[in-house]
């Protein structure tokens, strides 16, 4: 394990569409303050935002943790929801369990996890035994995706 240069936690509330996206915006600002290149910042910001929206919509809220390491940027989204019953389906573009209300605001098209997968170098999804999902995302430093 490499040393952690920076670790920050952001709290995400369920169904709070007024503040949804604030955590990802804060992640983006931290990365820009560190001087990371724009394409890398964009990839991490999009992954963070999709993960945050998943926590707002499906996960009953949760925590988004940003870690900047020497060799990678890691995001961990840990929610309080029911977990994902079929991961294979959840990774499929177009599959969604979102309600019509969520679709009206422009989400719930079944692109969230596939979008995250497109942006990151590593994506791990685990259901916690006590309930909830942990989504781990890593973007390597010093390499183009």
């Amino acid at each position, binding site marked *: 394990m490499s040393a952690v240069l920076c670790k920050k936690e952001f709290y995400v509330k369920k169904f709070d*569409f*007024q503040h*949804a*996206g604030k955590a*990802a*915006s804060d992640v*983006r600002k931290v990365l820009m303050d560190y001087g990371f*290149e*724009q*394409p890398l910042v*964009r990839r991490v*910001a*999009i992954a*963070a*935002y*999709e993960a945050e*929206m998943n926590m707002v919509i499906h996960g009953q809220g949760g925590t988004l943790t940003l870690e900047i390491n020497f060799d990678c940027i890691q995001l961990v989204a840990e929610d309080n929801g029911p977990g994902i019953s079929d991961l294979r389906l959840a990774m499929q573009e177009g599959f969604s369990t979102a309600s019509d209300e969520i679709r009206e*605001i*422009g*989400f719930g*098209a*079944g*692109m*969230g996890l*596939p*979008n995250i997968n*497109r942006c990151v170098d590593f994506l791990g999804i685990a259901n916690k035994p006590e309930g909830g999902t942990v989504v781990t995302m890593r973007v390597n430093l010093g390499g183009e995706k």
Partner: protein
Amino acid sequence: MGMNLYEVVSIVDAEILTPTLDLSREVCCAYGADLLSDVLAFTRPRTLLLTGLFNLQVVRTAEMAELAGIVIVRGKTVDQSLLDLACASQIPILRTKLTMFESCGRLYKAGMLPCSKDEECADNVCRPL
């Protein structure tokens, strides 16, 4: 060929809802959608978004995807909270009474490029700010 937001304003007869933000910024291409995950997946930095949505998530999406600005179509009423967030995030908001179809059509006719993955607009303007 690049186009700036002032040119977009005149092509789609738009109102400028964020007058304090700079409209001279270059737009590399345009994307029309009401699905925000599609916007996150298929746009490039400095894309112009045309959308019928008018909630805060549109602005957040534009911020994460580093879009050049947003055109809200069909003249919808926009909350001050959206404009405040847009100003804080430096995302210009334009509003046109035209439909999505006509807005996109006029821009395309004026030479605006689609947001395709090929290198049609490789003349520097697609590069991140």
